[in-house]
């Protein structure tokens, strides 16, 4: 079956000017491979600053002007180019942003959700009311401005806005930061519901535990590249089912798994590493690792970017 969304070897480069107006190219996203199937949640996990949000913007076609992209993004088997992105944004592809700051501060939230619904006025209002009821938002919320919403309400408004658009693919960028535990569970269950109703969901988060609770597949990001695609079940025990050393390190750093924190830090895009981006921190690294970047390859039903994975 053709996956709903497929990303192959995506790279995003920014042009920057430095002293003396010299132009520099900074590769912020450097090799991302992943796919999202209908009815499934694919979670992307990784430390902040690993280029996760940029991936979401790239799929939506909303990168800033000084960014250049290479690689392929396929949606339902066809290339997702700028024209298709513009046609599908807000219709087949919905976006759930991470914070209330993404709502227009000068517009009532009801109107913003109706704008997401599209179509004629009455129909849009109808959809918005139904969505508000579904996500336990009182009728008065319509008339509120974003700054008047609580964190949980804001999050539900954003989910409601995604649900009114009949989307097939939903991209949720950090939908749970700073929420109390119960709200986080609720938010993720709502995403699960949307997936169960046939949507493909791409969940971007740095909250590994939360992601593992609902996701079908997990993609691990490191320094702007995807290093592993695993089944959610692979994250168990001492992590021996995981394929990439960084995934195992992430798993073991969780409190209930021993809190073993990996020393060192992610390389910066300006470091321009030739070989495997993880090699400087990897216990298994050999000479070959720092020479050439490993390609993504299939291992035990998942994918991994490592020479030593078995």
């Amino acid at each position, binding site marked *: 079956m053709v996956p709903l969304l497929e990303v192959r070897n995506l790279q995003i480069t920014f042009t920057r000017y430095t002293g003396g107006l010299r132009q520099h190219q900074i590769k912020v996203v450097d090799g991302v491979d992943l796919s999202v199937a209908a009815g499934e949640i694919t979670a992307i996990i990784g430390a902040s600053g690993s280029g996760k949000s940029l991936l979401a*913007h790239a799929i*939506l076609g*909303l990168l*800033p*002007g000084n960014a250049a992209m290479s690689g392929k993004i396929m949606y339902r088997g066809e290339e997702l180019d700028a024209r298709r992105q*513009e046609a599908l*944004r*807000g*219709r087949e592809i*919905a*976006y759930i*942003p991470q*914070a209330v*700051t*993404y*709502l*227009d*501060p*000068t*517009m*009532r939230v009801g*109107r*913003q959700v109706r*704008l*997401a619904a*599209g179509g004629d006025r009455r129909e849009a209002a109808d959809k918005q009311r139904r969505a508000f009821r579904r996500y336990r938002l009182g009728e008065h919320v319509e008339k509120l*401005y974003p*700054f008047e919403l609580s964190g949980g309400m804001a999050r539900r408004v954003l989910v409601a*806005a995604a649900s009114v*658009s009949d989307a097939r693919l939903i991209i949720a960028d950090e939908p749970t930061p700073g929420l109390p535990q119960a709200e986080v569970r609720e938010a993720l269950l709502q995403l699960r519901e949307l997936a169960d109703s046939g949507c493909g969901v791409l969940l971007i988060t740095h909250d590994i535990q939360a992601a593992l609770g609902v996701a079908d597949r997990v993609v691990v990001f490191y320094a702007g590249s995807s290093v592993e695609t695993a089944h959610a079940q692979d994250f168990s025990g001492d992590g021996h089912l995981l394929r990439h050393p960084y995934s195992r390190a992430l798993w073991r750093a969780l409190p209930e798994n021993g809190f073993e924190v990996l020393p060192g830090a992610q390389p910066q895009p300006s470091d321009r590493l030739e070989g495997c981006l993880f090699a400087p921190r990897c216990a298994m690294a050999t000479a070959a690792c720092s020479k050439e970047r490993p390609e993504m390859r299939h291992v035990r039903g998942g994918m991994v970017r490592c020479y030593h994975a078995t």
Partner: protein
Amino acid sequence: MVYGKWFAMKLIRLCTLLLALSIVSFCLISLSPIDPVQAYIGADAMRVSPEQRQEIAAYWGLDDPPVMRYLHWASAILRGDMGTSMLYRTPVADVIGERFLHSAALMAVAWLASGVIGLALGIVAAAHKGRWPDRLITWYCYTIASTPAFWIGLVLLVVFAVWLGWFPVGLAVPAGVLAAEVTLLDRIHHLILPALTLAMVSIAPIALHTREKLLAVLSSDHVLYARARGEKGYALIMRHGLRNILLPAITLQFTSFSELFGGAVLTEQVFSYPGLGQATVAAGLGGDVPLLMGIVLCSALFVFTGNLIADALYKLVDPRMRKGGDG
């Protein structure tokens, strides 16, 4: 009342400003090597006897020490008497009042037109950032900013008044027509070219400012989200951008009274338009000190009023904006 106190503070500020301004100007003029009597007599110098000079000097109080002269002049002003213009031989207040009406018509038209057109051009430029409409508009703005206002007036004069003959070459009313017979249409006909000149110059700053502000808004999170929801084009800009740029644009227009006045001085000179600007030049050339001082104070008042309105707008509108002023 918060606003009452704020307004009182502004009023005090205005008073100290005008006081300082009058003292500084008066000192500078006292230091001037120009002999006001000579300036007053002008071309008649040969026919004026020393006795007459004495009389003139005494009449204007020019023999008193500067401090006395200042106090004399300042106390007269407080009583509403700004002195008599040497050039026009009528009270300064009358000259300024009449002239200002003409200038106000010119400036008001140019101010409104440049505000609306500048805002529109700024929006178009930002919406097409980096493409030809943007390049064209920014090119125009930067070029206009490098162009003397009076030269634009000259070009418009050559094209529209001399070659095409659509508009009169100058003045505010037709020459040789009795004041009572001048129609509104006549006045408008004479106003168009000067107003167009002044508007063309004033468009540049407001357009560039709008463009910059709008670009900042367009790169904000909430516009990214709006685009992710499928909104696009001018509808998106009007919905999510306009509200954020309108207030700064309007306040910028109000704080531009200083440049507007300067532009009016030059424009009026080109079109022989009998406004306050032309009077300023005449006063400067003819050494009409009372008129010059009057104009300095009045133009400062004019600029201050613009700034005051801008401040007041922020004060009045902004809290409502923060609470959200969905129209």
